[in-house]
């Protein structure tokens, strides 16, 4: 069984894993990081999106062994010292969720979107989030939240903590 060493949300883990274990199952079942849900199981919905070496990936489409030597950030790694990430706060304040199932993936994909485009238009946000499905909100408030977070992250106020 291959042995992997992977950084997840700031901590280093070493584990023997079966090659067929998906990254999302490793995160949830081995590390207890259940903040990352399994959604569609067909790579469509994006609920399991995490950052690997800083870029978004669908963790149901990556093997845990492929994360060996990589740095993984889940939604649980965003808040520092109990402070919400600006994207988390914007989702809260704009009511960008109802059932919340898509939210962890939506937030991770949104952070990845702003990494490449700090001031996206509404259309660019919709394009950037096309791999993340939400069946509650109709996306209106999600787009508003990303716009709001983008504004705050460009001009951080004193209470914010950047990722």
């Amino acid at each position, binding site marked *: 069984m291959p042995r992997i060493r992977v950084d997840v949300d700031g901590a280093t883990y070493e584990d023997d894993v079966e090659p067929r274990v*998906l990254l999302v199952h490793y995160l949830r079942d081995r590390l207890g990081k259940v903040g990352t849900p399994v959604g569609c199981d067909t790579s469509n919905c994006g609920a399991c*999106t995490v950052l690997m070496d800083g870029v978004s990936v669908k963790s149901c489409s990556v093997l845990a062994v492929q994360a060996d030597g990589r740095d993984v950030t889940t939604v649980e790694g965003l808040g520092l010292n109990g402070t919400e990430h600006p994207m988390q706060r914007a989702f809260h304040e704009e009511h960008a969720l109802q059932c919340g199932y898509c939210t962890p993936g939506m937030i991770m*994909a949104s952070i990845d979107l702003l990494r490449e485009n700090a001031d996206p238009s509404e259309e660019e946000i919709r394009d950037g989030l096309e791999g993340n499905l939400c069946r509650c909100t109709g996306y209106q408030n999600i787009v508003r939240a990303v716009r709001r977070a983008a504004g705050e992250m460009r001009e951080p106020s004193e209470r914010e903590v950047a990722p």
Partner: protein
Amino acid sequence: MIPATFDYVRPGTVDEAVTALADAGEDAKILAGGQSLMPLLRLRLAYPDSLIDLDRVDPLREIRDEGDTLMIGAMATHHQVVRDPLVREFAPLIARATETVADPAVRHRGTFGGSLAHADPAGDLPAVALALDAVFLVRSVRGEREIPAADFFVDWMTSAMEPDELLLSVRIPKLGAGWGAHYEKFHRTAQAWAIVGVACAVRRENGTVGEARIALTNMGSTPVRASEVERAVAGGAVSEAAFRSAAEHAADGAEPPADLHGSSEYRRHLATVLTARALAAAAS
């Protein structure tokens, strides 16, 4: 769902990968970006004995200028291809089509070579490679050979590569000044497969069409070259009327599939409409 068990091999070099593939026998699969293969494994539509993961074979990610051609390494990701200045300058059709593949997270992992080797006629890149007369460089322990795009796509999800052959890179003849390109993709929802797609490049010459290259996505068991349309527009006027008339031949000889998204007849109709649009966009 959880994939069936398999042996996992992670080579660090091309030589190691080719040897591993030869040793593993016919029930081995190459894992490139995994964005098509992983869902197949999870749904147990594929259950290879061994998986050879190219993720750490970094030389295969190179994109290089080779004079008259552009060499795109098989493991260059879609994300990398879309942003590459060489691709944008000399193969804009590839950049435009790749932008429409799936979604950002999938484009971070999915690879140029993986999409082509997968040989899904509903995938966007096979038609692009066919339209551009790309050449595929493959290697096995028996040696290297080149396969022209016209011979590479054999049948539904079947390429001309032997089970022990690995796709190393794809050579794309550069399109220089005077060429315009467009990929017209018709789908009902974001990130869905093309119901029909049209890959098109047009060279303008003194106000007329000097040359056109057109290939169709999801119009048969392989990507389909629209040769009749290419002939009909060559030497003719750059006008929407001329393009619409030529595009009437877009589905000639094609045997499009029928599925949930549309009948064969509907796809034939789409091919004519989308080909006219693609020609107009590429020539503008």
